[in-house]
């Protein structure tokens, strides 16, 4: 149910993993790559992961949310390597008997993934590149990496 891959992601395939006849709702989130940053044209994105830890953290996020929302089906796929503009970089699919839990769990999954999973993206421009690292966080003392956030 966790996948880290250099291949193009297929929403149908990931969604199918969480389909059950006992479920009344499936919410699938697609994260897609944007072509601009502060007026600059982004040509492509490069994703890098600390693979072993990324898979482990994705599984922790998944297990944590299944326990919190009482769900049995969450699938997460993240693409790494070079990803073209407008392509899918992240898929989170949640299957649930009822829609409310599926929406909440899917939203929470994306937030947590962005916070704790060691994956990095670099935007490549015509005249350079930039690791997307929330510069506002990076240069702030109270950044997202307080020990509290990362104690699991």
């Amino acid at each position, binding site marked *: 149910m966790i996948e880290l891959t250099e291949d193009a992601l297929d929403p149908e395939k990931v969604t199918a993993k969480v389909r059950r006849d006992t479920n009344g709702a499936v919410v699938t989130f697609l*994260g897609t790559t944007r072509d601009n940053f502060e007026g600059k044209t982004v040509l492509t994105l490069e*994703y*890098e*992961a*600390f693979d*072993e*830890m*990324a898979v*482990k953290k994705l599984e922790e996020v998944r297990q944590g949310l299944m326990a919190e929302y009482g769900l049995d089906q969450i699938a997460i796929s*993240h693409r790494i390597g070079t990803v073209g503009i407008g392509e899918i*970089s*992240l898929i989170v699919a949640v299957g649930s008997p009822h829609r409310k839990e599926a929406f909440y769990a899917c939203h929470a999954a*994306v937030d947590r*993934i*962005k*916070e*704790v*999973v*060691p*994956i*990095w*993206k*670099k935007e490549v421009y015509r005249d350079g590149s930039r*690791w*997307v*690292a*929330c510069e506002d*966080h*990076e*240069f*702030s*003392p109270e*950044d*997202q*990496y*307080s*020990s509290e956030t*990362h*104690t*699991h």
Partner: protein
Amino acid sequence: MELNVRLFALYRERAGRNIVLVTVPGGATVADLTDEVRRQFPNLAPPEVKIVVAVNTDYADSDVVLQPGDDVCLIPPVSGG
């Protein structure tokens, strides 16, 4: 104690390598290690930015004591999704 410290993304590029050999005394903590890394690579991160460390694929607080053979990785601000 010598530790091979793995670097990713921004830190890898700033240091110009993906593994650095760091020597710290026995009983050294994660904070001691990041101090030593900053000494070797002053441009890795601004002083006000805490360098996040993973030990054996889990985030480690600064007071965690390192053991020989630990898998130590420096984790720049993440940006998946």
